[in-house]
């Protein structure tokens, strides 16, 4: 029987390829992201081993804070200790290293490197010591407070040549330097598309950090002792109270490689999750194809049963076929994925994020993962159709056409509705603080329910949607309408990827639109100024505080206040263990200037007072405070990045609706810290009666002199804040795009199978006078109706889901449900186009049906 199954599979090579297409698609995405991730990781591994080639030891501060979003921030290292290191026996050279915020201003006055989510902009040290990471490509090293060197990529991008004046903004505000050299990082012009402005050690320390400090020392040994012994000697030479530690070259290389991997892994994990979702949606296509082919082969299976094959044997032969397709499809998918990884790479390059990729990393793990995922999904998808095939009565061998019954419709609706109800209950529970898994299960329940109901509603909905088509497109439209309704199971399964994608997008769009209008309302109420200067780089660099103060003293400006962000560690002394070094996990803190914020921006303080904030006060978000049992007056310990411990006290509670972090502190708290803080927003109010245009251009003059920040009116600023939610929507639209690709493939396959199944009918129609154009039109409109069925049910489901989520959220804060009208229109238009596009090839195939052969088949 196994041999027979293999033979029967081989006899249907065409269909084999068709089914495999769905598997190839799903596994291709998966292996593509695997290979892409491995390739990037491998390249960065090589890059950093190369860059740290000459670094035998690395000295840095022991005081650091882990940032919320990955990475860490470490305290500075005093330059005074550099001499000590240089005098250690076996040390050839030692130099300071800095990697801090600095933004190069282009010749057009605009900063180089994109605002926001682009690669970071750094300032650093270029040193004559051989342990420096940079090598001069052109010109010479900078020397003194008026000279700088740029990385090669930035110099090319900004059109700078040696001798040019270059403006740079860093912690100490904007300054102008003369370009004296161009450098490369290892053998690449710029790592990851970041920009680098390099100075001599003293200038870098004073301009980028705090005078007298660098981030770390890079040490080169004379190779008389091992790196481990060298590091021990340096450690021994450094005084304990400096709080410094020494790593070997291998250790720091591994650490940097690990850090970059962590960052990249966030990105690739996201891609991999997407790929698994793609494979999941693709499994519907696989399931559908198996169902259709099993139905079409009913006669053959019935014949096998009639001549004595057991149910089990028939089922098993289908499963064997499924496994074979799984293997074939996954193998091809893996190959396709390797190509896809190159496409991903090119896409990233096109968006300006230059990832150096050298060679391809095809690892056996990716291969095994792809194969296992592909084969299991395929066999699972083949399971039900295979079982159904086994149950075929031997008598069916005498029947004519493929039967596709929708089963007991009422039972379907009842079971489906029950699943949907359970799903919605899960959704609501998740919003009311049930664990996140409940949300996933809820969504799963809703979708499963809808898919069970699908065949029951496919016929009436397809007929309704087809009514205008039939009215407008004559006989082709009429046939298309009937065809889309004749196999309700097939139609609903084919439309499933569209339905899933559209429902998710509609639900999220509804949620986003509602949140957006909510943000607009809250910010509109909280911000009573006229302008806002914003920089889109929370947490790393931004507007120097001196610029904020300068704006505040402008003529025509009534008041200007800055808001920034930093990370500290907050310790509740009542917690056990109370040891401040127990965890390095940091807390995101919003810094404000309490002297100027009043009357300009309302932080929504519900208890206590901003004026009481002082140097050591904190304002905590209500919910967080309630969770931890904190009140106004509670004493907390606050550890800064430089390790300084501040005894802080809660001075107030706030709603959190208009703050960007759960904690607010005065900027005074960080006035003496060696790592400077920046403002991310400056809110500005003009003097009563002052001409707004004039005031605006005065502020603009300062911000463009500083080369940083976007100046917005109140309206623009509020729009901008509301648009933040669009980034989340972007991801969701990516998901829609993915499900569209899969949906197209699914519709194409289903239509091809339908055309094959109906070739006699098509032959008959051609014989009695249907033109090729009419045949094409019939297939096209069937495709459009199927796609629209998915879109319409998806939109309906999405709106209900969005409504439930918003309603549940409204219990907590008040947000009102908003219908995503434009989004919905777009979805319908896209589904229409999708239907037309998917039908192109099957329609062409339908016109190629040989009339004589088709009608002679008996």
């Amino acid at each position, binding site marked *: 029987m196994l041999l027979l199954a293999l033979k029967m599979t081989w006899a249907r090579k065409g269909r084999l390829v068709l089914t495999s297409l769905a598997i190839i698609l799903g596994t291709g995405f998966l292996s593509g992201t695997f290979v892409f991730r491995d390739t990037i990781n491998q390249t960065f591994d090589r890059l950093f081993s190369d860059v740290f080639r000459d670094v035998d030891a690395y000295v840095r501060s022991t005081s650091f804070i882990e940032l919320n979003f990955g990475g860490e921030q470490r305290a500075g290292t005093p330059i005074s200790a550099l001499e000590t290191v240089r005098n250690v026996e076996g040390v050839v050279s030692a130099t300071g290293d800095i990697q801090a915020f600095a933004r190069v201003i282009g010749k057009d006055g605009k900063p180089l490197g994109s605002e926001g989510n682009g690669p970071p902009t750094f300032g650093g040290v270029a040193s004559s010591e051989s342990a420096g990471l940079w090598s001069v490509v052109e010109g010479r090293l900078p020397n003194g407070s008026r000279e700088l060197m740029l990385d090669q990529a930035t110099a090319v991008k900004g059109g700078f040549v040696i001798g040019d004046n270059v403006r740079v903004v860093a912690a100490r505000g904007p300054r102008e330097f003369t370009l004296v050299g161009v450098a490369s990082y290892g053998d690449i012009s710029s790592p990851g598309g970041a920009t680098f402005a390099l100075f001599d050690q003293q200038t870098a320390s004073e301009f980028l950090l705090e005078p007298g400090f660098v981030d770390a020392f890079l040490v080169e040994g004379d190779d008389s002792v091992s790196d481990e012994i060298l590091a021990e000697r340096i450690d021994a030479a450094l005084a304990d109270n400096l709080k410094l530690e020494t790593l070997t070259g291998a250790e720091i290389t591994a650490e940097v490689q690990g850090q970059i991997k962590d960052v990249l892994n966030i990105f690739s994990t996201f891609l991999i999750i997407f790929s698994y979702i793609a494979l999941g949606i693709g499994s519907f296509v696989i399931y559908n194809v198996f169902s259709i082919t099993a139905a079409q082969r009913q006669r053959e299976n019935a014949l096998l049963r009639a001549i004595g094959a057991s149910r089990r044997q028939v089922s098993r032969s289908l499963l064997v076929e499924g496994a074979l397709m799984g293997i074939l499809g996954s193998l091809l998918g893996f190959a396709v994925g390797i190509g896809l990884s190159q496409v991903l790479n090119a896409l990233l390059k096109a968006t300006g994020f230059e990832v150096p990729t050298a060679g391809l990393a095809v690892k056996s793990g990716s291969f095994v993962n792809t194969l296992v995922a592909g084969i299991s999904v395929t066999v699972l998808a083949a399971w039900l159709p295979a079982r159904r095939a086994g149950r075929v009565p031997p008598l069916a061998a005498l029947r004519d056409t493929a039967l596709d019954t929708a089963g007991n419709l009422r039972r379907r609706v009842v079971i489906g509705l029950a699943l949907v109800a359970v799903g919605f209950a899960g959704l609501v529970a998740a919003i009311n603080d049930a664990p996140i898994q409940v949300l996933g299960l809820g969504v799963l329940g809703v979708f499963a329910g809808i898919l069970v109901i699908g065949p029951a509603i496919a016929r009436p909905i397809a007929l309704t949607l087809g009514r205008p088509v039939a009215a407008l497109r004559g006989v082709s439209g*009429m046939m298309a309408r009937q*065809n889309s309704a004749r196999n309700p199971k097939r139609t609903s399964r084919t439309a499933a990827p569209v339905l899933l994608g559209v429902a998710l997008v509609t639900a999220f769009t509804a949620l986003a639109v509602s949140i957006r209008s909510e943000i607009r309302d809250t910010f509109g109420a909280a911000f009573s100024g006229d302008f806002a200067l914003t920089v889109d780089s929370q947490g790393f660099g931004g507007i120097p505080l001196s610029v904020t103060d300068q704006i505040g003293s402008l003529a025509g400006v009534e008041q200007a206040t800055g808001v920034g962000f930093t990370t500290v560690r907050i310790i509740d002394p009542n917690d056990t263990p109370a040891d401040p070094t127990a965890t390095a996990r940091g807390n995101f803190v919003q810094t404000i200037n309490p002297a100027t914020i009043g009357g300009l921006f309302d932080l929504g303080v519900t208890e206590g007072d901003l004026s009481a904030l002082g140097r050591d006060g904190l304002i905590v978000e209500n919910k967080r405070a309630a969770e931890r049992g904190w009140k106004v007056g509670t004493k907390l310990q606050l550890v800064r990045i430089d390790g300084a411990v501040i005894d802080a006290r809660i001075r107030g509670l706030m709603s959190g609706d208009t703050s960007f972090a759960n904690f607010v502190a005065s900027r005074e708290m960080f006035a003496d810290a060696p790592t400077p803080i920046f403002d991310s927003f400056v809110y500005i109010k003009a003097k009563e009666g002052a001409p707004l245009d004039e005031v605006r251009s005065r502020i603009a003059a300062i911000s463009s002199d500083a080369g940083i920040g976007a100046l917005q009116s109140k309206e623009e600023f509020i729009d901008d804040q509301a648009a933040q939610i669009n980034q989340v929507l972007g991801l969701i639209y990516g998901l829609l795009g993915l499900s569209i690709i899969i949906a197209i493939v699914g519709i194409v396959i289903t239509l091809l199978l339908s055309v094959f199944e109906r070739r006699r009918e098509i032959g008959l129609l051609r014989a*009695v006078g249907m033109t090729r154009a*009419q045949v094409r039109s019939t297939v096209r409109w069937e495709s459009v109706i199927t796609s629209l069925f998915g879109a319409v049910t998806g939109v309906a489901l999405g709106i209900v889901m969005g409504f439930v989520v918003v309603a549940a959220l409204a219990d907590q804060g008040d947000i009102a449900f908003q219908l995503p009208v434009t989004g919905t229109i777009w979805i319908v238009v896209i589904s229409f186009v999708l239907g037309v596009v998917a039908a192109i090839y099957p329609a062409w195939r339908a016109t190629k049906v040989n*009339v*004589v052969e088709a*009608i002679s088949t008996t």
Partner: protein
Amino acid sequence: MTKLPVTEIPSRSTSAARATSATKIYGTGDSEVRALDGIDVAFERGKFTAIMGPSGSGKSTLMHCVAGLDSLTSGAVYIGDTDLSKLNDKALTQLRRDKVGFVFQAFNLIPTLTAYENIVLPLTLGKQKGDQAWIDLVIDTINLRDRLEHRPSELSGGQQQRVAIARALASRPEIIFADEPTGNLDSKTGTEVLQFMRRAVSDLGQTIVMVTHEATAASYADRIVFLADGKVAGEMFSPTAQKVLDYLKNLGD
């Protein structure tokens, strides 16, 4: 062995369709099969002609080629005065729709359309209204008025074939081709269908060409054309079932 005389090919005006030196070759070299080997035949207007012959004699191929479903390797086919070899696919499709009617052995109707929709399908495809009085006459003649809104799956085999014949008649075509129309029916239903075809010719003045291998079916025709090995082997006018059986027996000797 009695060989029947072959009549003169009727002039253009009296033939609804004709083929001259019609040759159809499948495959090449050793596997070459001459399905039609230079056939000259004409089908008279207003007559019921049957084509008979053993399987492989080329009777279906002849019908497919004359009806414009398949193309000849050489030779010519005319429907009325139109040379089919001069037509492209679109014109050929239009010709089939407007000038030709079809009845096949099985699978004659589109399962998603009602009986009435199936009957007027060629008209609908051509965006024509048709002659409603004629359509009513056809429907009354097949006696299926009460089943017009039914789907093919709700009709018996005989009813389905009658609907198929009504469809073939609906556009009042130049000629109707029927390929074993009773092949799938029991003899009682088959008789009904044949009687109806006979009436379409005698009472309604239609032209029908029917491929069959049943002597009884062929006996309803005005004339029988016998094919063998892709050639016309003989013909018979005003046949009876007995005459046909005798002829076939002789042919086999």
